[in-house]
């Protein structure tokens, strides 16, 4: 797992930041602005949305620094603040309900068919990830990259573990299509094939 957050922060810098030292806050910002921005882009694609996630995350984190007790690494605490901020934004933008923005599988297959003839897009996994429905994309990212368990994701999103598992499953199925892998080996439904 590689999310970019997993770096320790100097304890003295944290103490100074808690006391309102802007230089210390700036140091923390420089250390974590890229992972927070990247997380924002993954959950709420679009530069403006991701910038807002960065702003609101750090404003919120700096104002709540006295609530950070040090019983978990600072980066893990900050990451949760960033995720909550991004999820809040998704909800506010009404991109939350996956049922309302379900991507038609035929559309995905059409995308794949077009892209198969366009090698310049072969490595563009980022764009392909952004084509997934918001909730599916978020669960896929939080589970497979940020390393959260289904229970943790369910808690963050106010859903059940089963919901998280089914979204992860859908995310993998759709990414297989978007990344142009063959879809008929096992597919997303049971198939009758000989092994």
């Amino acid at each position, binding site marked *: 797992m590689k999310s970019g957050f997993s770096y320790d922060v100097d304890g003295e810098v944290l103490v100074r930041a808690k006391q309102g030292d802007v230089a210390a806050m*700036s140091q923390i910002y420089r250390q974590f602005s890229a992972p927070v921005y990247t997380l924002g882009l993954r959950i709420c694609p679009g530069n403006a949305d991701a910038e807002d996630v960065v702003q609101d995350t750090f404003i919120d984190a700096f104002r709540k620094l006295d609530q950070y007790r040090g019983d978990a690494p600072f980066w893990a605490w900050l990451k949760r603040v960033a995720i909550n901020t991004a999820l809040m934004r998704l909800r506010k933008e009404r991109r939350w309900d996956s049922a309302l923005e379900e991507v038609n599988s035929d559309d995905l297959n059409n995308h794949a068919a077009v892209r198969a003839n366009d090698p310049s897009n072969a490595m563009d996994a980022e764009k392909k990830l952004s084509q997934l429905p918001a909730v599916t994309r978020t669960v896929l990212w939080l589970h497979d990259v940020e390393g959260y368990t289904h229970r943790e994701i369910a808690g963050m999103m106010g859903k059940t573990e089963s919901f998280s598992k089914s979204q992860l499953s859908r995310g993998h199925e759709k990414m297989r299509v978007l990344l142009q892998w063959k879809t008929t080996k096992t597919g997303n439904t049971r198939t009758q094939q000989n*092994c």
Partner: protein
Amino acid sequence: MENYENGQHPDTAELLSISAGDASAELARHVQGCAACLVALDEMQHTRDTLSHLPLQEPPEHVWSVIESRLDAGQPAVGVFQRHMVRNLSIAASFLIAVLSLLFIPHAPQQGSTEIMSLASESRGLESALAYLVDDSQAMDLDTAGRIASYEDRIAALDVAISEHPEQIEIRKSMMQERVRLLRGLVEARSETMMAALRTY
């Protein structure tokens, strides 16, 4: 659920349970001997690797300046609320009382299309009130945001359903009743958020 003896393959969720380490013995046995499932597992791992190795991206330089100025200004987390709504707290409080009074207006029972018209009128009133209630995600906790989003989504889904039953009065009436009930819940939730924000000033 599990029957891999007749050439059936596990679905994606079952394959993912292997990665999670909670697959059944029968599933694990099948996958070990099945080239297609091994390829599928390999593709899933490749997706994980691809996503995990996407490069970090840096935010534009100006973002820190904005954060710094917001911190300097001591701008509360209810940014939009402050920017767009409250110029005068007494006006806001009076308005809120007027909006809340909408929730307690008694409605006499009516029949058929008359009741639909009455419900439509009540819907419009509640929607007008909503237009003035600030929607500020920063001022609310995640549970409240979720409750509001749930109301909004259910209302949107109902609107679709109502448009699909233009002629069936009874169905339409019960949907309109539900719509008014949801709108009342939404107004109440938004009002609570606004009152909580007012208390912080």
